[in-house]
């Protein structure tokens, strides 16, 4: 299946370089199962034109994804999510979730909450979201 270039949410004026935003988003899409082996990434040109960014930056991101083994370059067709990309998705997903949690824990401590209170809050939020 082809992926729409609109899948990427690129913020050029963020402090995170654009190539890294693309890499992170592809990894997240793969880890979350929204991109599966055999899916093609949108072409460099499509992404560059949709997001109005330099195509070299997109190429750089795709090159890194290729060297990390997340995607494979298929001659004449583009970048394809590799069969091995899904190995160990849990570790990947855990790491990402941890990165999201760390600042929240930090802020909670700044608000003067104890670890016990934070844990209770986390449990309560978890229950809430399951409803």
């Amino acid at each position, binding site marked *: 299946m082809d992926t729409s270039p609109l899948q990427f949410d690129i913020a*050029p*004026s963020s*402090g995170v370089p654009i190539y*890294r935003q693309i890499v992170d988003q592809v990894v997240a899409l793969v880890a979350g199962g929204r991109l599966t082996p055999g899916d093609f990434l949108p072409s460099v040109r499509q992404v560059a*034109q949709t997001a*109005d960014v*330099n*195509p070299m930056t997109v190429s750089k991101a795709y090159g890194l994804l290729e060297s990390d083994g997340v995607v494979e370059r298929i001659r004449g067709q583009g970048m394809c999510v590799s069969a091995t990309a899904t190995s160990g998705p849990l570790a990947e997903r855990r790491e990402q979730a941890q990165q999201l949690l760390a*600042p929240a824990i930090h802020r909670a401590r700044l608000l003067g909450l104890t670890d016990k209170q934070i844990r209770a809050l986390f449990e309560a939020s978890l229950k809430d979201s399951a409803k």
Partner: protein
Amino acid sequence: MNQLSQPAVLADGLCKSFAAKQVLSNLDLALAPGTVLGLLGANGSGKTTLIKCLLGLFRTSGGRAQIFGEDAWNLSATTKERIGYVPQEVATYPWMRVRHVIDYTAAFYPRWNRELVADLCRRWRLPLDERSGSLSVGQLQTLGIVLALGHEPELLILDEPVASLDPGARREFLRTLIDLVEHPDRTVLFSTHITSDLERVASQIALLRDGQIEFCGELDLLKDRVKRLRILAPDALPASFAVAGALSCQVDGKLAVATVADFSPQEIDELRQTWNADVTVSDLNLEEIFVELHDSESPKLSQGELTGAVR
């Protein structure tokens, strides 16, 4: 092979003074073919002077300025054909109609892409039958860009090309640049104050300060390395508290905010351990980095500090 090693634009020990006032002093800059370089600098830092020296519109007071290996002051006609230039203030003959200004300019070039020009005029809604003297500043600027692109130059130099453009026209300009640089040998140098435009198209950033290039390198590397740290210690930090290599550091009781030019996770761990502190790291965008570098009184950001490999 020579083409590969030769920079499209080169400044080597470039100096420029106007009477007693030195604007550029011993400035070095090299642009490899295929680079899109954004030139940043405060008002009056010498961006226009640098561009005019590079183009041979100003005679340098010392050092070398070269384009495609030729002395900028003595550019041959064939080299000039390879250059497109949009000045800060576009000047045309006010009595000429826009279409005639275009035809007049086209006549100077052996190669002129009429289709491209017609397409650009449509995209920018340039009123072809109006006299150029009645155009608004922004329309005149877009006309200047169209005139600089008609001969499909390998090297495009633009001096604040978007200063008078509305956001829609600015975005159209960026799209044009993005289309242009799809061709891997095209080189672009443009000065601007609009950092968000550079973030979209520039691969390299050069910062002009005190007549020299303070930093020239990849935008991505700059964003990867320049970070702001917020350090929260359990007790008040001493007034002497400092972070090694920081561009700025403010201490207020238990809290310190520092901007580092060369972020490393080990350094953060050290800070955490030494001061038993909570350290958070935040990313800075180009505008924030520009202000930090510009306000910083610390010595120049050394090239060495920012040449580490990108992960």
